[in-house]
């Protein structure tokens, strides 16, 4: 860590399940921060496809589902490896291991059992439950109804449940969405409804599935802008948890993710507060909170979102500049339409916060216009494209 330049939590990092549209039994598990680009690579439309997906008879491939929200490339790679090698990974305790290797390769290593969609789904379900990954701010996406039904089946079959806070969202193709009006599982009902609403509102917009995933920090633009504003103008005030004064330059301070709330607190205080609120027996010894109530606005906050904003504010100066500058341009041209489009993918927060966001955008715009930021504009534009 010390020697390596720290990075902010990536806007998106996913572990995906790839399936051949020609032969549905052909499956592939991979990880990428950019699913559309990666899919093009798999299909041969771009350089860098995996060899396993290079057979022409199996193309084109499709991403039937993915897990998003990985806080780092390392974590995504770990999860990918664990899912690919579910017969080996140490993250699965032996009693609960589902996939067991019965053969050995020539080098003596256990041979990986052939994977089926059911096995992948079951292991995915298992890995999302294991302590190694259970507290990660992950999100489960399904883009094919058939795979989602498999998932649902397994959820009913499995004796153990996922943590209820784990969002599971579906984003089927337009036709499929119509057929399954109520796909939402108990966990993801609210999110799914929002997505469906968004899609219904934008019938003319084709993007769905992986193409609808946010590849950058745009969805949290308001959040980032709020944080930037707070610390730019030293509005942090006192810690919402401990009440002590927050010294901006001396420590790590998280901000409530709710748009209207400007609650700021020490990182450790936030975690302690949220962990205390989770009220789980195991949580007394846990380190990572998942979600909780903001002590100030009493709204639900996602720890992953808060950390994304914190790391972005802490380490992603460039990204922030780009984000804010690009927003300024776009705001100038597209104004409200943009906001709605962003809100579609952003689920709970965006819709409520639109109005407030505008006001903050203006403020952010003003900040961005400061002379020091002028140079970064063009670079930001390029990246956004």
């Amino acid at each position, binding site marked *: *860590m*010390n*020697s*390596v*330049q*720290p*990075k902010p*939590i990536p806007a998106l990092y996913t572990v995906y399940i790839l399936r051949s549209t020609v032969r549905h039994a052909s499956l592939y598990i991979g990880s990428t921060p950019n699913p559309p680009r990666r899919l093009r690579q798999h299909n041969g439309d771009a350089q860098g496809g995996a060899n396993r997906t290079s057979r022409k008879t199996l193309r084109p491939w499709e991403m039937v589902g993915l897990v998003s929200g990985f*806080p*780092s*490339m*390392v*974590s995504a790679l*770990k999860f990918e490896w664990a899912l690919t090698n579910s017969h080996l990974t*140490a*993250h699965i305790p032996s009693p609960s291991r589902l996939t067991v290797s019965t053969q050995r390769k020539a080098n003596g290593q256990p041979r990986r059992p052939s994977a089926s969609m059911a096995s992948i789904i079951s292991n995915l379900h298992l890995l999302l439950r294991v*302590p*190694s*990954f*259970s*507290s*990660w*701010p992950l999100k489960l996406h399904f883009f094919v109804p058939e795979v989602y039904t498999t998932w649902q089946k397994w959820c009913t079959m499995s004796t153990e449940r996922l943590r209820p806070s784990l969002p599971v969202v579906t984003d089927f193709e337009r036709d499929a969405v119509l057929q399954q009006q109520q796909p939402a599982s108990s966990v993801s009902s609210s999110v799914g409804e929002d997505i469906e609403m968004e899609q219904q509102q934008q019938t003319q917009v084709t993007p769905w599935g992986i193409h609808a995933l946010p590849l950058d920090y745009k969805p949290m633009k308001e959040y980032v802008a709020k944080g930037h504003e707070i610390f730019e103008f030293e509005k942090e005030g006192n810690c919402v948890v401990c009440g002590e004064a927050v010294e901006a*330059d*001396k*420590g*790590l301070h998280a901000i409530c993710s709710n748009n209207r709330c400007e609650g700021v607190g*020490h*990182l*450790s205080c*936030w*975690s302690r507060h949220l962990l205390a609120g989770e009220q789980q027996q195991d949580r007394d*010894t*846990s*380190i*990572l*909170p998942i979600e909780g109530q903001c002590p100030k606005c009493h709204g639900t906050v996602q*720890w*992953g979102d808060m*950390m994304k904003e*914190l*790391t972005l504010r*802490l380490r992603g100066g460039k990204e922030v500049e780009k984000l804010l500058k690009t927003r300024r341009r776009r705001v100038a041209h597209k104004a409200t339409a943009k906001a709605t489009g962003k809100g579609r993918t952003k689920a709970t927060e965006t819709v409520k916060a639109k109005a407030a966001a505008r006001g903050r955008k203006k403020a952010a715009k003003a900040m961005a216009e400061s002379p020091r930021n002028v140079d970064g504009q063009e670079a930001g534009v390029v990246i956004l494209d």
Partner: protein
Amino acid sequence: MSRMASGGLLLATPARMAHDNSLIIISSSPDFPSINDLLAKPAKKSTLRSGSNAVQLPSDAVRTFMTAASVWRSAQSEESDINNAVDGIRAHRTQSCDTPVLDPKACVKLPPKTAPTEEQTGAKKQRKPRNTTGTRRGKLATTALPESGTTESVNEPDVVGAPAPKLRKRSKPAKDPAGGQTTLPKGKVTKAAAKERAPKKKTEVVSRHFATPAPVPNPPADPIRDEPIVLEQAMRRRMDWTPPPENITNHAQSDSSAVKEVSSTALTDLGPAKLPQRELFENLLDNYGCQTDHGQGSPAVAAGADTNSDILGKRKLIELVATTMDKSKTPEVSPTKSKVPKKKPRTITELATAAYRMPEESDVPTSTEKLKQDFLLGYFGAEGEPAGNINNVPGGKTKGPKKAAKPRVFKKKADPRKQILLSPTSAMKQVSGQDFVFGTASQLATEEDPELLRALHEAMKASNQPDSDPFSIPVISDLASRRKVVNKLWAAGARDDDGELLDLELLDLTESPVPPPDLLPRIPVPSQKDPVCPSPVQKVQIEIQSSEYDLFDLTGSPALPTVPEPHFFLTQVQTKEKKKAIVAESPSLQKPDEPQQPSPVFDVDFEPPPSNQEHNQLIAQSQPQPSVSPTKAPIDIPPPPKFELWTDAKLAKEIASYGFKAVKKRETRIALLQECWENKQKTALGGNAEQAAMLTSSAKPAAVLSPGRARGRPKKTSAAAATTAAAPPVLIDPVPASPSRPRGRPRKDPAALSPPAADKPAGGRPRKNSRSASPAKTTKTKAKTRSPAPSKPAAASSVSAVSTPKRRKVAPAPPKAVVEIPDSDASDLDDEDPFASSPLTSPEKQDIFSSPPHQAKDISITEDTEDVSIMTTASPTSQQAELFRYISKAITTAPRTTDPAEPSWHEKMLMYDPIILEDLATWLNSGQLDRVGYDGEVAPHDVKLWCHNKSICCVWRVNLHGKARKRF
């Protein structure tokens, strides 16, 4: 004539060589075949063919007649020569004169030939120079004539007779059937077949050492050349020889063999001498007939200019002869030869080891019979063909007695030699253990024994080694602490001032008295002595008793395989006096071994077997009479404290003598031994309060050892070291070697030798082990060799004999028992280790050769076990949970950072930063855990488990490719 016939036969089969004399054999195989034949023959060919084609044939006929007469004379002279070498020489000279008269070329060639031949026939002394001359000639390879002369010279004595035999073969079938002739054709036939097959096989078998691929092509050329040059006589001789293209070796052998035959006839064998006489008469007839044949044979030869054609012609002729003469034998011989090579499936190992086996077996030329037997065994074992040839040559008589006698001779002689063969691992160890002394030749010559140098070196090392200090051991109770804190010489000295040495001795004394009374009937005697005082002698007694006790326990418990150990133990226990007595008892065994041993290492190996036998004998004696063994034991056994005292110089010596291991290993070994000693002492201390307690303590170590092999071994090794230290180094060396070798060899024998060669070799090895034991035991061992021999309480000696078979059979229990024994007989284990086979590993690893050494493995095992234990301790969830709680507490309670650029560990985790395990572990161990109240350190692996439990993304500092991570 007789020479010719016998010589031809001899030439064909190396076995014959063996048959005659050991010396002859030696000369035959290496000397002549390659060089002389190769160089001389090719030159001859060109000249020979040109001369032989047309004109020479008639001249040959005349010559043959002339030669026939000369042959007569020569044969007679040879007979007389048997008694008087000088006469024979003269006769040869006359013969040589005869031949040159016919052809100037031949004359030129002949004189040199005749001279050496005469020398050969005349006296052994002359033979040697002849060989040298032959080699020189071959090396020169200048002119065809001298070369041809050399080649012919070999045959020439034969030539005089040779043309006759060839003629006989061809003509005899048609003209004169005679016993002498029959013998000749047989010999020739065998030669041809043997030459063809045997040389190839020989090359295969002993490929590198003996095989001379180059000579093979030359021999065929030789016959051709011989034919033209010497005219028909040479032709026929060559023809006989030629059929196998690779005859060169045979020629050389035959030459030597011919000489040998003469000598042999003169010395002992009347039968062969008689046969040549008959042959001479027959040959005369044949010679007459041969002229007619000459015309036939020569055209045939001319037609088939090449050696191949010659061979074919010869074979046909031979067949004809066979029909007329006593052919029943000849045909039998040839098929047997062919069959034998086919039957044997040769493995690479056999090929590789054949060369070594041959010399070993043959090297022991105590008597002609033995030699013959050895040769037969060697050939049969390695090469079936030559053996067949040998049998044919001497006749039916030799075969029967040879085979019967073989096993006996083999057993006596073969044992030490067989032991020489070591498995690759053991060989490597020996090599590694060998000390290299560098210096000028004069320095080396003046230098003292390598043993002395080695001892000096080791002593210096030992004195410099902190671990080697015996005094340090008692002070440091914990192994871990001891390892960490390397005791230095000064520290050891300080301890000496403290007088810890005395403590050690006291401990030993305490140990010794306890076990003997309880366990062993013998014990009471030593127990009486024990109370007297803790003198070294008493200590020795105590140890012996303990060892015996262990042995008994082992025997009593079926699970423990005590078979091998008891022997070792006994051997170890035996003091110098006993060893000396043993030596006196079995001087014969050692004596033969000593000369054979090429290098000190080998000597060491050889020495042990007799000692084992002796030990076994002693054991056998002691067992029936329990009282005897204890009495001896106290005298012989060195006390453990003494061992420590001795360790510096003598331990190193012992280790070197045992294992031939590298210095590094020795150090580790010493460390292990010391540790084991400490453990013993600790156990003894625990039980010091009461004798009963002592008994329990002594018993406990054994029991502990038995369940856990890894832990048991070190203890054993320590005990062994102690015992070894007590015993004089020289004596000790043989002892360790003996146990290992008998075990390893028997394994080899049953695995490799026994299946093909039947039970004889296997029986011979067991005999070694069981020699000391009663004959009944030996028989038991033989019968039980393959069946898992149960460890009988009374039959420690029997166990030793049986031990080898048990190992093979995969009787894990016996080796375990051996392991347990260690307390008393650590030396046993040590001995085994150096030579490679410890009882435990022996069943698995010991395949054919000696078992590999296990000390290094033992060490590793112990370490592994420790690690495992640690892991197991850590594994319990309760402990883990507690540790995790402390880690969590330490992390969460750490003050939050004041610098956003460097968040605390807790903040890193909250921000989902990948955690570097090593860094976190270091941070935790740098006082954070202590701050929280956890006394101890955390390994990165534990931190990893904690991270996994807390859903924290963790990574190692280095990625799988061994490079530092550049991104997260």
